């Protein structure tokens, strides 16, 4: 499911996140038979030690999004723990932890009630135990700072003195949550739990794992997507000092390139095994391989985009409100614009790697994966293993951004370890990482707005054409579902609206990316709205507010409504924070965009200066966010800053191009990323409310590119309709 999540699934999940998941909570006490002498594990996530320390398990993969801190904060809050005496440990992959993947801005949404329930159940037994010991009614007791407190008398008992008593009490079936007004930890600035180890260099990523007897490996894969190996000569490679063995990776032996939507198999190539990473890299450079590219479409970027453009007239209708044709005929004018966005790579700072010890029918894995379930599925499908023969550890991950939903690199490592009968650490070079990514889909967007004599939009048509990630690599399903669907903004806001999709097949491997679909559609929609405002001689924010209409619940699809009041509030605040209504000097400009994404509302204003040579300097970004309750202010602000910089960086530079069926880019010299001097100041404000927390990894990204392009227009009069900007 995860691999092909479309917005419909997402909205259904978020709409029903509460009840359904709480009912599914399976955390149970360990049902002790005798009094524990020392620490007690009250739930798989919570252990209380007799020295007063509480160990909380962080169950989701930490990819830099701060979840290793955020989920334990929720647990600690409901438990009433003293955060200063909490230790957080990363959980391995374990079905007992329920959903354990990171992505789609889901982690907080899906785990909010789950963590609260787990914390509250243990709080309940601690209070029950204190009630027995203190001879006070449960209703008069509460927990704070790892103590049960009797407020009236001021008497308290520390958790550590309640372990024996509490461990005899069965966890309740259901519990009441703490009132939000009594929260002590949630919403504060909490430094992340790995901070010391990060700044001292002690933290271990997958790429840092070292096992006794381990050998090192790298791969040289056919640069052409879906190609194979005809023959190879490894004579020179074998003469490289430190090289131990050469192994051909042939996916035909394991069921071919793709096994199910969640378990992509590996790309064919040659692996070099050595006694160090460097020897493996050097050995791989010396391989002489004849690649077999008979099955390649031998595509190039120009041809792919021509295909997208020609498919704009051969589409499926994904949503039809009113009648767009009548609206076009009756309009005083019809405005049309076409926008293009490129394929994008992920370039996680930690390149693809995996360490696997697969011996004696047991496979132990250390993987930088967002998706341990897919990894386990892949091992089961490729090797016929049973779940109990697989152990997956989840070390901290050096960035993911959607790339690590796919487990191809882990399948490489498993094949090699099995063949070598030794632990193998596989490290891809950056070149392999960029050439064998699962790219953000490129797309072409044809927009049409029908305007009445007052300039009001009476008809809206958005045609998106691309190669869909849903059908990439022979996957099956509705190709529009992941690219443009009936939820696409401004669905529900315009009486005559038509959303269409033109489908093209391509060899380019496509997959998740941060705000993958919305990062493309928001650029088209919010650039176009800026163009309409300019045409009407109106201020962009004034025009957008008029376009949205008065604050109300806007019905979009079935029961799903857009809470416009929340969007309007963030827009009004960003207008003030950015000094939107003040005049800027010559050559400066401000651009605006505001979106709803992953249940959160965000408005951004980008301020730029463009010099005479067209060089763009981004001076400042103001963002106002309503994501419901903020769990950890420090982590949340970091997510917003990061999402914005990622959106800006991709808009400025990001582009993967292909020729003869292979990616042209190979490293950071030709796949550029923003450097420190280009990063603007970013001011973030969160709306304070007590609404359930919503996603935050992705929402900051989609408005960034259109806000930047609109700012450049404001500064120069030059409209950007094609990303990246440095090529426009």
């Amino acid at each position, binding site marked *: 499911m995860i691999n092909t999540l479309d917005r419909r699934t997402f909205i259904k999940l978020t709409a029903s996140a509460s009840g359904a998941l709480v009912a599914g909570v399976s955390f149970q006490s360990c049902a002790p038979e005798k009094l524990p002498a020392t620490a007690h594990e009250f739930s798989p996530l919570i252990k209380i030690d007799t020295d007063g320390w509480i160990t909380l398990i962080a169950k989701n993969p930490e990819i830099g999004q701060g979840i290793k801190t955020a989920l334990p904060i929720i647990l600690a809050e409901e438990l009433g723990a003293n955060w200063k005496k909490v230790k957080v440990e990363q959980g391995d992959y374990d079905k007992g932890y329920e959903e354990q993947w990171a992505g789609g801005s889901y982690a907080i949404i899906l785990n909010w009630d789950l963590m609260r329930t787990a914390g509250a159940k243990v709080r309940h037994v601690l209070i029950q135990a204190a009630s027995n010991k203190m001879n006070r009614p449960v209703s008069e007791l509460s927990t704070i700072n790892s103590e049960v407190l009797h407020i009236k008398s001021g008497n308290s008992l520390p958790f550590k003195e309640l372990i024996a008593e509490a461990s005899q009490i069965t966890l309740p079936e259901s519990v009441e949550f703490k009132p939000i007004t009594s929260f002590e930890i949630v919403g504060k600035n909490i430094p*992340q739990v790995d901070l010391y180890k990060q700044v001292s260099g002690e933290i271990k990523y997958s790429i840092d794992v070292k096992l006794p007897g381990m050998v090192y490996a790298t791969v040289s894969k056919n640069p052409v997507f879906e190609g194979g190996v005809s023959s190879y000569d490894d004579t020179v490679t074998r003469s490289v000092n430190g090289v131990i063995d050469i192994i051909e990776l042939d996916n035909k032996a394991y069921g071919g390139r793709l096994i199910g939507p969640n378990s992509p198999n590996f790309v064919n190539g040659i692996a070099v095994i050595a006694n160090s990473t460097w020897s493996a890299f050097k050995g791989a450079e010396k391989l002489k391989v004849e690649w077999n590219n008979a099955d390649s479409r031998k595509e190039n970027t120009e041809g792919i985009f021509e295909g997208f453009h020609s498919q704009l007239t051969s589409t499926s209708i994904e949503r039809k409100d009113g009648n767009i044709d009548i609206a076009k005929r009756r309009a005083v004018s019809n405005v049309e614009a076409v926008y293009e966005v490129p394929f994008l790579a992920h370039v996680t700072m930690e390149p693809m790697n995996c360490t696997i010890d697969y011996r004696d029918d047991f496979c132990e894995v250390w993987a930088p994966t967002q998706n341990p379930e897919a990894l386990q599925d892949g091992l089961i499908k490729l090797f016929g293993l049973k779940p109990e023969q697989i152990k997956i550890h989840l070390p901290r991950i050096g960035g993911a951004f959607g790339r690590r939903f796919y487990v191809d690199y882990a399948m490489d490592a498993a094949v090699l370890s099995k063949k070598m009968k030794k632990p193998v650490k596989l490290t891809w070079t950056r070149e392999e990482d960029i050439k064998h990514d699962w790219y953000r889909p490129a797309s072409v967007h044809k927009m049409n707005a029908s305007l009445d004599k007052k300039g009001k939009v009476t008809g809206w048509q958005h045609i998106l054409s691309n190669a869909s990630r849903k059908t990439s690599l022979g996957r099956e399903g509705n190709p529009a579902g992941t690219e443009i669907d009936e939820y696409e903004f401004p669905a529900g806001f315009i009486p005559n609206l038509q959303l269409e999709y033109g489908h093209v097949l391509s060899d380019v491997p496509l997959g998740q990316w941060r705000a993958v679909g919305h990062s493309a559609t928001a650029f088209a929609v919010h650039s176009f709205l800026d163009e309409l405002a300019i045409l009407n001689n109106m201020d962009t924010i004034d025009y957008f507010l008029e376009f949205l209409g008065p604050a109300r619940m806007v019905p979009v699809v079935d029961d799903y409504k857009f809470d416009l009041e929340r969007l309007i509030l963030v827009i009004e605040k960003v207008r003030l924070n950015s000094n939107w209504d003040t005049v800027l000097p010559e050559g400066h400009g401000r651009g605006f965009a505001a979106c709803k994404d992953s249940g959160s509302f965000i408005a951004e204003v980008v301020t730029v200066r463009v010099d005479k040579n067209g060089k763009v300097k981004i001076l400042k970004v103001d963002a106002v966010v309503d994501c419901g309750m903020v769990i950890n202010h420090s982590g949340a602000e970091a997510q917003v800053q990061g999402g914005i910089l990622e959106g800006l960086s991709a808009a400025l530079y990001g582009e993967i191009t292909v020729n003869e069926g292979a990616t042209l880019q190979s490293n950071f010299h030709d796949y550029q990323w923003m450097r420190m001097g280009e990063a603007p100041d970013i001011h973030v404000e969160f709306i304070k409310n007590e609404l359930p927390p919503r996603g935050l990894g992705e929402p900051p990204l989609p408005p960034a590119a259109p806000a930047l392009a609109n700012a450049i227009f404001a500064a120069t009069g030059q409209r950007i309709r094609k990303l990246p900007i440095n090529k426009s």
Partner: protein
Amino acid sequence: MPSFTLTINNDKKVISAEPETPLLWVLRDILDLTGTKFGCGKGLCGSCTILYKGNSVRSCTLTIAAALEGNITTIEGLSEEGLQPIQEAWMELDVPQCGYCQSGQIMAASALLSKNTRPSDDEINRAMAGIICRCGTYVRIKKAIQLAANKLEE
């Protein structure tokens, strides 16, 4: 295989390796100093930044044969006698996200502050331009360098 004597974190280490082996892989695979990270292998991203003779250097392109003359400081060596002001500043501002580039960022910042305790914005940008942060922690890094500069003046 030839052997070389390197000075790493003020400690002499005798290493058997080919002379063209990049220091990065000696640190990581032989000496288990994994705080120095592999990011690109071509000196483009800066995740592998260490100090050589006090200068910020990319260890993925510095061969061991070229690294024999002076002390090599890695992130582990920086914190040998407790956290440095720059690391404290990093902690106060909760700088890292994924954290993978942060050793490189801290080493480059440390080279800068060892020569210039009052760096301007432009000087910070120039000194840090070689180190990519994919997560976008630049905003906090810049503040942390300024904070560390203040700490060093005290």
